């Protein structure tokens, strides 16, 4: 009885693993195909079923009309995601600390209302803000620039940083701050010298979520940029709508999802240690 249960469990785990991994394996296999191999129906194993070619991978770095430029979108995506994540983390951590340690009051607005204002931004569908963002950036000359996208991405990522950090600071006892201030620290000194060094785990988790949602956003990048500042998701979608061959598409897709897929290893580590529990209450 117990044996059958164990076997069934492993079969399910392996089944789901196959479902998860299959798109990546398919993309990997397709990225080494040529026109013949693609148009002759679905094949999977190189050498056995088709003769591998590296044309797809070469096309991403080739120059001229044959080439698809992946380097510039990659650099753009990296810059926008990193700058916006760092700014959001700094602002978000400070705000979350303030909200978790002090009472704010302005008329009927209390701490919980301010927290709700931050977090509720996640409910906002991107389409609601898309057109005003477009007109606003056009007004200040921020369309199709890194700076313009960073500005919009801060609005996207700041709520995530605040959300994770508020719960994290809730798990650090306030006595820690009080002791630092008895020892002669100013409130700001106490934050930087005592609290911040103890918050690395929370900041890493918040940072990872900022990276994931920044790197993977498509919609704002799609509407607010044209040709000068193309990001990876936009670049691949514009390839998809033209007659780009599957092998180049697959290679392009693999390069653009690999950096963050590696983040999964870090997330697993934090989850196993129980550091994520506090962040998700």
């Amino acid at each position: 009885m117990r044996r059958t249960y164990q076997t069934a469990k492993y079969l399910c785990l392996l089944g789901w693993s196959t479902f998860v991994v299959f798109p990546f394996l398919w993309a990997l296999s397709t990225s080494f195909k040529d026109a013949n191999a693609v148009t002759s129906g679905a094949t999977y194993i190189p050498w056995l079923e088709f003769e591998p070619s590296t044309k797809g991978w070469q096309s991403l770095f080739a120059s001229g009309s044959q080439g698809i430029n992946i380097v510039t979108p990659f650099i753009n995506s990296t810059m926008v995601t990193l700058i916006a994540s760092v700014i959001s983390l700094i602002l978000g951590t400070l705000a979350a600390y303030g909200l978790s340690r002090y009472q704010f009051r302005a008329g009927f607005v209390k701490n919980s209302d301010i927290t709700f204002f931050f977090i509720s931004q996640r409910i906002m569908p991107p389409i609601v803000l898309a057109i005003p963002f477009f007109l606003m950036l056009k007004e200040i000359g921020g369309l199709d620039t890194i700076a313009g996208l960073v500005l919009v991405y801060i609005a996207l990522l700041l709520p995530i940083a605040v959300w994770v950090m508020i719960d994290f600071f809730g798990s650090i006892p306030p006595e820690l701050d009080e002791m630092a201030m008895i020892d002669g620290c100013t409130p700001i000194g106490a934050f930087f010298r005592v609290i911040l060094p103890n918050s690395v785990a929370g900041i890493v988790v918040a940072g990872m979520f900022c990276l994931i949602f920044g790197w993977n956003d498509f919609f704002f990048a799609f509407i607010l940029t044209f040709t000068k500042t193309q990001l990876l998701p936009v670049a691949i979608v514009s390839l998809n709508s033209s007659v780009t061959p599957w092998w180049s598409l697959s290679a392009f897709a693999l390069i653009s999802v690999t950096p963050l897929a590696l983040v999964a290893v870090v997330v697993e580590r934090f989850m196993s240690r129980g550091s994520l529990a506090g962040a998700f209450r």
Partner: protein
Amino acid sequence: MLKPKHYFLLPALVTLAAIILFPLLFTVRVSFSSWDVYQAGLDYIGGKNYLRVFADGRFWESLMRLSSLSLITVTLQYVLGFALALAVWKEVKGQRIFRVLFLIPMMTTPVVMSVIWRTMLHESLGPTNDILSMIGIGPVPWLSSAAGAFISVIMVEVWQWTPFMFLLLLAGLVSLPKEPYLAAAIDGAGPWRTFWQVTFPLMAPVSIGAVIIRLIEASKIMDTVYVLTSGGPGTATETPSYYIYIRGLRDFQVGYSAALSLTYLVLMIITLTIIAKLLMRFLVGKEA
């Protein structure tokens, strides 16, 4: 007067308010204008746009479609995510490999993976129909039939976001207290009873949080639809976000799309609040 506490809060508050509030107020104002591709500008036409929203069948159909789409995907994600989290919670061989593997889809860019899924669901050249033909199922028109396209969107959403449920639920399981399990073992409860009487009730708060977060994200479904089906065939997979995108950024009916956006936003806030309160009442048995 600025006190030290204000130095912590104000930079973030001012930044977010500056970026969000102006566009939002602007949308409200534009929704009362006839701004379109022929005539840009802020005139005032009263509530005409909203009357048009009210009579726009295509918009209400897309909302109904979104409701069933998000209910189906979030339910599937919750059940699958919980099952997977339970399976790798206790010691199993290859535990860490499974855990990392199960997390990977949520780290990947939805539109990029949708491009890959599109090639996989290709009717004659894709592997999905190839594999199905091996077990004798004829070519399924995945993206060219209404039902096929709807199922395809659900499948890709489940693939992409079950990991998120899995992450939240496993993080919750890992931090559960040990004592209730000892008590259950002493009472001689089997695995089935232990799950329903100990694990599931203890996990109720985490479950509610996870389901609500996913419902919020699912209410914005757009990327997958854009790449996979472009809302088609016809309007079979069109979600409100995608419909507003067509009206606003393709037909450039700025005023009308603003009215659509705000109606959509208000309906989402009301619906999600009601769902959150109901879930709280049923699962935790207390007022939210």
